[in-house]
């Protein structure tokens, strides 16, 4: 061994160098106070070593920087420790710098002849701070990104070359790949190399001058080795232990940097906080940011650097000591103030919480998996994709959904529900006015009679919390809720309050209460058919109560009338009758409730909501019944549902609430599959399928909202986790929901003949219920005819059929409508069967008279003939007097109070008025059976048919020349 050492020493002179290093004399011996320099060197060496290993795993580009740091932090074995040590040792270095500086100043180690070494130290300090600044950006998380953004913005304030310096630092005008490559080159190359060089000079000069020792008489000199080496070694170990303790907690890593995502929790690293705080004080009058960021720190640093020169003067040393103390205390105080202000700032605290939440969410997303229904297994972790984790995070519905909802939907739609972590009510502010004089810019409430004034109530659309769930649909089908609306104050204003915030109020309308649909067919239908029918009975536990008294006890489904009261017979009979009716109604209502329940479950099942999947399977039988009920009620004349019904009159219920349906609805609510012309002010967010730049939102943004609403996002604790829809699926969903026929390039714009147009209008608007088939069965057939065949409407032939007892009750006329059991059918069958010859003539006359009112072009001649033959006159008479017990005039009239009014029956104007609103009093009034009003809205464009369309279809029906 000795031989080997001798051999090496012979060629290197290592013994001599070691001797030189270790046996340096320390006057008055080793002391703890000399350890700070060694500790700094130790810290730097630690940084070099950990930095090199970090380098081996780091990748500097804006798509990979965050991801590679993420990998080091959370995936690589021991990576968290490596990064933790590097992160906290950097901070320890700054602390040690402060201590070292203080010690150098207090001990006077900066004074002659050590001026140059002091200046070298000042340069080293700048280099260390530079390393801190450049290193802060490298993880490319939100915090580092935004804090460094401020720092590089400050560069532009440097006179003359500021902008250029910034561009060179960033490698361009904006933050990007080259910012990272340049910062990394500075951090891992340029600055450490300079630091090594200056440190070498610093140490060489240190050796040249020797240590500036504190001399204590009687304390013997000693060599550097062994005592001081031991002290230094112990101090460095203590430092390492402290750093390891911090590192154990792990270095922070925020959410990935997103230049478009506002980040309100941006703060520099704590040792720069005093500079950050300083910036707040320098207003425009005080020289602004230039003063705060460049001039003042520049002057302070210059004075610090000038310490050796100042020390030449009398009292200079004392000044220097005082100056450094003031500087450190001042910086400490500013740091304290900055932290205090932040701790008092609710916005900042919220932003910080949000940032922590986001960072946590990114970790969940990195580990996201999906459940494969076929294999019953979880997929591999999806980690980051090639576009980076920021891309994954930006497309996380749980994070972005609520933000986008607030931006795009919350001005009309609320999202409020018990137990929901998001609460977005629709708010309305009072009318404000600004006091111009005196208190400039202060807004106060416009008070009228001591009450705040508001503009008209803003539009509020359905609350979308729990959209398409059973509870949500049940509410929609509840007559109490569907059109409900209320306004409530959010705060109770303090006395004499003028603060607009105190008068803000919440507009609540769970469904259509505050839209034009509140008077629409759906609301009318729900109120009419699902409303509570009788107030005077209740059914509970088999007991029927009437006016609060128990009048009967039901046994199973059969009511057994057991009277509890022993009153007189008449009263008993009366109650008995009422009770019987009540029982019937109760049974009917119970049935209806069951039916509604089945419809709710069936409709909600169409949405295929994940959190209802189990109950959807469990309730299969009920859902199947509900589907049939939807087909036989909702899809009769209004909604389309699968193959039943037709689109164009009300939203298509096929796939209601599903991803595809909802995407299409938001993309274009005015599409014929949804609300068509009746859409009430809901904007189309992505109606342009060809020119996407015209859209208000991208398909993917909509998908984020829809996935969020429906709960289709990754959750760690899900047993069967899902991944949200990707961009391609979003685009596909919109395209298939709003499918457009393929266009032929170069095809001349098609010109439909008026006949074809009219047929198309009939097919789209009327053929959901009406046929238009001639006697040979040719024409437009309804898939599911439920209303009269309109072929030849108004003609004598048509009327003959209507007034034929054999035919009026068939599907050709009223067979499939509620009128089947109505007055008209009864009248015809009772009065018009087995007519005598005289009666037949009378009927012919009435028919001729009525038909002549229509004035059909095809009947011009026969109408004239009928007039000449006196049939019309006789028909008028017969209308009022004919038939044994009753006449047409008993019900119908010409004066506007009949059911329906027959004045001008079948004429163009009559038809137009009738189709525009069949439920008008003079037509069917309340007994109108499901026929929509095609043109009854004040805002002309929101009607199902335009005036031209209505005109065209009526003229076509009447066989006029088009």
């Amino acid at each position: 061994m000795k031989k080997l050492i001798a051999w090496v020493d012979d060629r290197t002179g290592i013994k001599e160098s070691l001797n030189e290093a270790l046996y340096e004399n320390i006057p008055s011996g080793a002391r703890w106070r000399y350890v700070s320099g060694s500790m700094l060197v130790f810290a730097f060496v630690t940084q070099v070593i950990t930095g090199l290993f970090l380098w081996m795993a780091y990748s500097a580009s804006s798509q990979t920087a965050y991801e590679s740091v993420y990998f080091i932090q959370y995936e690589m074995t021991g990576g968290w420790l490596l990064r933790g040590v590097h992160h906290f040792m950097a901070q320890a270095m700054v602390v040690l710098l402060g201590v070292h500086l203080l010690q150098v100043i207090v001990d006077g180690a900066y004074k002659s002849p050590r001026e140059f070494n002091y200046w070298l130290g000042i340069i080293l300090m700048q280099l260390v701070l530079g390393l801190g600044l450049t290193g802060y950006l490298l993880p490319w998380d939100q915090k580092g990104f935004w804090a460094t953004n401020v720092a590089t913005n400050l560069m532009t304030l440097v006179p003359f070359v500021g902008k250029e310096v910034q561009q060179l630092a960033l490698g361009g005008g904006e933050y990007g790949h080259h910012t990272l490559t340049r910062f990394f080159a500075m951090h891992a190359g340029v600055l450490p190399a300079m630091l090594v060089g200056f440190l070498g000079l610093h140490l060489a000069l240190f050796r040249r001058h020797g240590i500036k020792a504190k001399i204590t008489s009687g304390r013997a000199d000693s060599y550097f080795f062994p005592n001081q080496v031991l002290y230094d070694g112990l101090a460095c170990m203590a430092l390492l232990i402290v750093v390891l303790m911090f590192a154990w907690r792990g270095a922070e890593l925020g959410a990935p940097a997103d230049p478009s995502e506002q980040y309100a929790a941006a703060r520099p690293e704590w040792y720069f906080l005093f500079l950050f705080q300083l910036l707040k004080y320098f207003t425009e009058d005080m020289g602004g940011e230039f003063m705060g960021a460049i001039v003042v720190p520049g002057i302070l640093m210059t004075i610090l650097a000038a310490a050796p020169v100042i020390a030449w003067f009398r009292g200079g040393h004392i000044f220097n000591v005082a100056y450094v103390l003031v500087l450190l205390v001042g910086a400490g105080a500013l740091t304290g103030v900055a932290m205090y202000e932040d701790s008092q700032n609710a916005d900042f605290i919220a932003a910080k919480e949000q940032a922590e939440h986001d960072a946590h969410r990114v970790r969940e997303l990195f580990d996201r998996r999906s459940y494969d229904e076929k294999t019953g297994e979880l997929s591999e972790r999806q980690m980051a994709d090639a576009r980076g984790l920021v891309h994954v995070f930006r497309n996380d519905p749980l994070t972005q959904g609520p933000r986008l909802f607030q931006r795009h939907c919350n001005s009309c739609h609320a999202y409020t529900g018990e137990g929901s972590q998001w609460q977005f009510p629709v708010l309305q502010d009072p009318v404000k006015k600004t006091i111009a004089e005196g208190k400039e810019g202060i807004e106060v409430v416009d008070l009228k009679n001591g009450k705040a004034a508001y503009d008209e109530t803003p539009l509020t659309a359905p609350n979308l919390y729990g959209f398409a769930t059973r509870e949500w649909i049940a509410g929609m089908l509840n007559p109490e809720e569907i059109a409900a609306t209320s306004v409530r104050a959010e705060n109770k204003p303090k006395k004499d309050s003028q603060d607009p915030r105190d008068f803000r109020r919440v507009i609540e309308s769970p469904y259509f209460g505050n839209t034009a649909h509140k008077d629409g067919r759906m609301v009318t239908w729900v109120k009419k058919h699902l409303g509570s029918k009788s107030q005077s009975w209740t059914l509970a536990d088999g007991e029927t109560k009437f006016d609060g008294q128990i009048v009967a006890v039901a046994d199973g489904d059969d009511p057994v009338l057991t009277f509890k009261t022993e009153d007189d017979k008449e009263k008993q009979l009366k109650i008995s009758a009422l009770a019987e009716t009540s029982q019937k109604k109760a049974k009917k209502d119970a049935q209806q409730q069951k039916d509604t329940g089945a419809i709710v479950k069936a409709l909600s099942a169409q949405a295929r909501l994940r959190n209802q999947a189990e109950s959807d399977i469990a309730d299969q039988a009920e859902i199947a019944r509900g589907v049939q009920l939807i087909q036989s009620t909702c899809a009769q004349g209004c909604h389309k549902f699968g193959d039943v019904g037709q689109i164009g009159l009300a939203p298509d219920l096929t796939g209601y609430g599903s991803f595809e349906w909802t995407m299409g609805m938001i993309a274009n609510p005015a599409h014929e599959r949804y609300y068509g012309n009746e859409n009430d002010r809901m904007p189309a967010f992505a109606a342009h399928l060809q020119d996407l730049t015209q859209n208000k939102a991208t398909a993917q943004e909509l998908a984020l909202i829809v996935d969020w609403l429906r709960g289709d996002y990754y959750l760690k604790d899900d047993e069967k986790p899902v991944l949200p829809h990707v961009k391609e699926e979003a685009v596909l969903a919109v395209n298939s929901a709003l499918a457009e026929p393929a266009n032929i390039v170069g095809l001349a714009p098609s010109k439909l003949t008026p006949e074809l147009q009219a047929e198309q209008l009939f097919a789209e608007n009327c053929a959901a219920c009406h046929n238009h088939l001639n006697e040979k069965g040719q024409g437009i057939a309804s898939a599911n005819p439920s209303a009269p065949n309109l072929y030849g409407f108004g003609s004598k032939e048509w009327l003959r059929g209507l007034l034929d007892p054999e035919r009026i009750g068939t599907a050709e006329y009223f067979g499939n409508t509620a009128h089947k059991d109505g007055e008209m059918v009864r009248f015809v069958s009772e009065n018009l069967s087995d007519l005598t010859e005289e009666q037949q003539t009378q009927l012919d006359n009435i028919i001729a008279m009525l038909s002549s009112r229509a004035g059909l072009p095809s009947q011009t001649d026969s109408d004239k003939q009928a007039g000449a033959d006196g049939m019309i006159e006789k028909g008028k008479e017969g209308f009022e007097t004919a038939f044994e017990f009753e006449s047409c005039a008993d019900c119908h009239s010409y004066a506007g109070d009949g059911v329906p009014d027959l004045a001008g029956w079948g004429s163009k104007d009559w038809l137009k008025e009738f189709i525009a609103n069949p439920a008008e009093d003079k037509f069917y009034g309340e007994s109108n059976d499901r026929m929509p009003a095609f043109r009854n809205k004040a805002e002309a464009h929101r009607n199902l048919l335009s005036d031209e369309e209505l005109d065209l279809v009526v003229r076509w029906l009447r066989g006029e020349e088009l």
Partner: protein
Amino acid sequence: MFFDPLFRKKKDASEFKRVATLEQIPKDGTPVNVPVLADKVDAWTVEVGQPIGAVYLRREGEDGETVVCYNAVCPHAGCMVAYSGDQSKFLCPCHNSAFGLDGEKIDLPGKSNPSPRPMDTLEVDEEKVKKDGEVWIKFENFYPGKHDKVAKT
């Protein structure tokens, strides 16, 4: 090489970009934050239709048919300004800058406002607003910390 960023061809920011429709902006004068989308070129990558910045849009005037547009970046040090609906103010989360609805500087109680200038307004194509109800703006960023608006090129 090192000085390459200084020799790069500068982007021309003088084109109007469509950022919103009129109906997206509340009639009562409350500002909305909308992102500005463009193709983002970053050295060797291009991403289509990425947010390159954000602006606040606000209706003004009696008829509410005039739109004013502010760059959402604080003119002080370049943080993104947040709009506080509670206080009807723009508040910067970094150094206490605050601005009224008109974009002018205001002082928060007990705090000084370090911003050198009001919020940066951006040019809005008025004709497009009146004619098509669409908001087209000339999107530009400005150097923070200076008294005058100097466009970044």
